[in-house]
Structures are given as structure tokens and as C-alpha cells.
């Protein structure tokens, strides 16, 4: 597929590295001069912008973590004036406190540019109708994909998540050719369509899917492609980077990370040491042009590896392979990030149940289900079933409120839940991807 921005996408590797160095150097100077948080970090690490003499010297800079965003709530580490911001997105945090991401006009433009390159590398363009079935709102998925698709001249159908039968009808009636959503939602949509007597493969014009926001596998890709008669592409991002940001190209050989926008390193999750291409480690990103909320050596927590060989599509930028897992205990349930610590915090505020819990994640049909097992407290135990059902529903309601994802609650006997630390017991993930 022809590049959207050939000069950028096919830049010779040497030139790209020189550009990255120039951008990184000016980013570091800018942050050292104007960002109190990052200057303090650099001083603690005893590194000065003058120490950055080559691109490799980036490894001297301190890392940033999710907790830095949380501690900086809501906008303490922003690097733009309030009146320069054109948007906020908010994601739920690990312990109930959310993280806020701000965007300048240029941040939105670069975000859209990045996705425009990705979308067009998979053949999306004018004449296409793309159904955006990621959630719109505080979550970055919906609006991110929306802006990127408009940028390449596609027609956007902003369906957001839910009301699946209507989504299938619109897909047929408006001759939708592409969709952006989680892989599990697309599978669900395929099942709903079949119940309606509609085959996505034979009865719709759908030909491309941009699927992400949750882990999936090549086996799942084959299933989706064969069953629905489309090409399914991986899309990657997190709110800290802006949102969904990078995709595979038509070759389906890894996700292209646009080097003029982001500098990636794969580091050893324990030592922080930079790893060689091909070695699995934690993805670490420096956003080279982000203005409102700069990200320098941000430890995303996703495990992957740099692809070594050049892509057959001719684009020169680095690629990463499929995300293999997490360095922490984060779960992704129906595209939403869930930390067991969020469940713990929510339960502490409900006196009717104990503080011990177990999370069981499974996939019923195509959709993830999340079950939280809790014990009824001694004080709250009533022998009336209706009282116990009220407690169950109350906990479900509270957890849904703080996790932004639907949860079933099971009341269990005291002493049957894992008492001691150990993620393997607190979380049981039965999904096979």
C-alpha cells in the first residue's frame, strides 16, 4: 500500500536516526528548562542535557512510570500552559485514582498523523467507510481512531461500543468496509450477526479490521480472517502515548513505530538495561514530539521485542512484535485495563464483604467475563437470601463503577479465598487467545 507520508515513512535509516537525535536532544533541553518534575528526575540521576551526545546516550536518562502520572494528578507534570490544551482524556488508575492526559493542538495532529500512516499502510483511504466501535469519551480509543480515519479521507461511522444488532444493520446499510474495535468485540459482532441471519463474510462489504486494546494471538487472527472474510491488523497504543497510535502494515509482520514521533527501547524489566533487537523485554517509549504531557523513557509495562529485519512494505521505521504479556498484574478485560489493586481498594470501602478476593476472567462466547469472588462479612451475613442478593448486587455495582467494566460477584464461604500474596492465586485467567 502506498505511504501516506512517503518522505517520513521511507526516510533512510541513517537520516531517521539523525532526526531522532535532534528531536530527543531538543526535548531534553526543553524539559530540563521548563518541566520541574523531569528536571528534578534528571538531577537525581545526575544527568544534564549536555550529556546527551549520541542517540545511545538516551539510556542515561531516568525512566518514567505510571506512578509518576498518578502522583502528578491531575496536571502537575504537564509541559503546556492551560490555554494551549485542546483536549483531555482520562484513564482509570491502578488504585482508583485516574490519570489525566492533556493534548495540545499539535499533539492531536501528530496522533492523527501517526494513525493516518498506519491506516493507509493497510489500504484504508477515501471511499472507505470505517465503523469505529471503540468507546468514545474519556477512553482514547474512539476519538483516536476517528481522527486518524478522517485524516486519510475515510468516512467515519462513530458507533462506539454496544447495541450490537444496530451495529450490524448499519454495517450492511452503509456499506462499511473497515472496523476499529477490540478483537473480542468483533467476534461477538460476528456471532450476533449470525443470529440475525447475516454473514459478515458474505452479506457485508467489510474487508479490514483494526483490532487492539487487548491481547490477541495469530491463531485468533486466522480465525477472524477466515470466518469474517477480512484482513485483521493489530493496532497498538496507550493513553500515555496519546491513545491507539501504531498499527501493522498490510504485510502483518509487526507494528511500525514511527521513529520521528516515538523512540523505542526494549529494556530488561528488572535491571532496566537496554536489550538487543530480537530479545524480549519491556517496551519503553520516548515521545519525541509530544507537547502537553511529555513521555521520556516511559515504561509501558508491555513485553515485546524489536523486529530485526526490514519490512517488505518499504517503510524504514522500527517494528515491534506481538505483545507477549505484562510485567505487572494488569489484566485487560473487554479492552479495559484492570489492576487487581483497584478491586482491593473498592472492596475496602464496602463493609458488607471481607477484603480478600479472587478474580476469575473467562471468555463466554466471544466476550470476556470477569467474576470477583468475595466473602460476606460476619456483620452483614443475613439468613435472608434477598439481603444477600442485595449485597451481591451492591458489590457488582461498586466494582463496575470503579473499574469501568461489568463484573459478576460470587459470594463464597469465609476462608476459601487465597489469603497470601501471589498473583497466580488472586487472579485466575481462563481465557485462551
Amino acid at each position, binding site marked *: 500500500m502506498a505511504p501516506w507520508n512517503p518522505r517520513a515513512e521511507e526516510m533512510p535509516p541513517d537520516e531517521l536516526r539523525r532526526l531522532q537525535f535532534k528531536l530527543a536532544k531538543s526535548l531534553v533541553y526543553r524539559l530540563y528548562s521548563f518541566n520541574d518534575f523531569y528536571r528534578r528526575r534528571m538531577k537525581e540521576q545526575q544527568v544534564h542535557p549536555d550529556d546527551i551526545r549520541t542517540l545511545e546516550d538516551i539510556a542515561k536518562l531516568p525512566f518514567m512510570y505510571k506512578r509518576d502520572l498518578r502522583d502528578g494528578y491531575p496536571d502537575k507534570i504537564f509541559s503546556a500552559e492551560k490555554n494551549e490544551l485542546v483536549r483531555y482524556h482520562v484513564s482509570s488508575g491502578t488504585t482508583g485514582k485516574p490519570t489525566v492526559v492533556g493534548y495540545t493542538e499539535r499533539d492531536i495532529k501528530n496522533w492523527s498523523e501517526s494513525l493516518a500512516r498506519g491506516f493507509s499502510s493497510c489500504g484504508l483511504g477515501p471511499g472507505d467507510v470505517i465503523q469505529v466501535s471503540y468507546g468514545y469519551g474519556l477512553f482514547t480509543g474512539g476519538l483516536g481512531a476517528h481522527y486518524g480515519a478522517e485524516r486519510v479521507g475515510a468516512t467515519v461511522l462513530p458507533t462506539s461500543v454496544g447495541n450490537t444488532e444496530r451495529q450490524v444493520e448499519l454495517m450492511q446499510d452503509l456499506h462499511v468496509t473497515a472496523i476499529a474495535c477490540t478483537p473480542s468485540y468483533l467476534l461477538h459482532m460476528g456471532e450476533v450477526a449470525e443470529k440475525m441471519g447475516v454473514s459478515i463474510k458474505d452479506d457485508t462489504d467489510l474487508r479490514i479490521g483494526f483490532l487492539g486494546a487487548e491481547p490477541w494471538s495469530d491463531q485468533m487472527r486466522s480465525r477472524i480472517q477466515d470466518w469474517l472474510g477480512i484482513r485483521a491488523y493489530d493496532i497498538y497504543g496507550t493513553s500515555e502515548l496519546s491513545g491507539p497510535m501504531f498499527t501493522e502494515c498490510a504485510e502483518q509482520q509487526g507494528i511500525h513505530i514511527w521513529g520521528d514521533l516515538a523512540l523505542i527501547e526494549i529494556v530488561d524489566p528488572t535491571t532496566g538495561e537496554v536489550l538487543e533487537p530480537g530479545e524480549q523485554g519491556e517496551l519503553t517509549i520516548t515521545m519525541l514530539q509530544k507537547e502537553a504531557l511529555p513521555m521520556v523513557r516511559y515504561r509501558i509495562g508491555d513485553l515485546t521485542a524489536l523486529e530485526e529485519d526490514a519490512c517488505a512494505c518499504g517503510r524504514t521505521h522500527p517494528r515491534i512484535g506481538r505483545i507477549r504479556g505484562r510485567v505487572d498484574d494488569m489484566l485487560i478485560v473487554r479492552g479495559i485495563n484492570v489492576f487487581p489493586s483497584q478491586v482491593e481498594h473498592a472492596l475496602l470501602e464496602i463493609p458488607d464483604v471481607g477484603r480478600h478476593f479472587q478474580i476469575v476472567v473467562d471468555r463466554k462466547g466471544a466476550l470476556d467475563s470477569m467474576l470477583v469472588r468475595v466473602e460476606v462479612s460476619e456483620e452483614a*451475613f443475613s439468613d435472608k437470601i434477598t439481603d*444477600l442478593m442485595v449485597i451481591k448486587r451492591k458489590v457488582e455495582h461498586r466494582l463496575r463503577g470503579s473499574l469501568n467494566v461489568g463484573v459478576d460477584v460470587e459470594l463464597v*464461604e469465609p476462608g476459601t479465598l487465597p489469603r497470601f500474596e501471589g498473583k497466580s492465586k488472586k487472579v485466575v485467567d481462563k481465557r485462551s487467545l
Partner: protein
Amino acid sequence: MEKSYIVKQISIFSENRPGRLAAIAGALRDAKINIFAFSIAEADGFGVVRALVDRPEDAHRTLTDLGFRVSFTDVIGIKMRDEPGGLSDIASILGDAEINIEYAYAYSGKDAAVLILRVDQAEDAVRHLLGRGGELLKTPLSK
């Protein structure tokens, strides 16, 4: 006076899976506690076992020590004629007095059938039932 007719039932939280009733009943057997009557109420994934026993305090302690969630509930037990109309008589008395039955279970014993009731106003219920000639179980329960 009405108080002596208020019977302490033990209620035990139980997960809805094989072997749970056996665990509860086994614990009571080992403590030599006799069960007069019991019922199981089930909901989504869990249930409550309710039992009338000869030594409710001991049963409570025994089961709590084993990790069960146990509580006492005030119920009343009334003897019924073990023939057509027996239940109707009792239910009519409570209905006339506008006393609501939250749950009930029954057993048919050697000399009479007994209806065990959890009602919203236990002492009122006792007064009305006695007033209309009802015969109630008295605590402590014994054979």
C-alpha cells in the same frame, strides 16, 4: 412470656457445590448436636442452610470455629394438625393479623407436623397464635 416461644435457629452460609451440606452435618454429628429440622434456601451460586438444633450455642461455636459464617435468627415453631387444612389454619391466623411470613419450612413428626416461620414481627405472631389456640415449640428445644 412470648419470648420463651422465640426459637433460635442457626443459619449457615454455604457455597452451592457438592459436599457443603455434608461438611456442616458432619460437624454437628461430631459435636453430638441433634438437628430437629432444617431447610436449604438457594440463590445464585450460594445458599443458606437453616437448622433447628438442640444446642444452638454449641452449634454456632462449633461451626464458626470451623470457619463457617453462622448467625442466629429468631423463628417460631407451631404445631399443625397433620391433616388437610392444618397449614391453612395457621396461615389464616397470621394473614388476619397482617403478619408477613419471610420464609417457612415444615416437618411432619411422630405426634404432629411443625411449621417453622420467620416473620417480620415475631412476638406479635406468638401472641396471635397462642390467642387462637395454637401450640408453639418452646425453648430450649428437646425431644
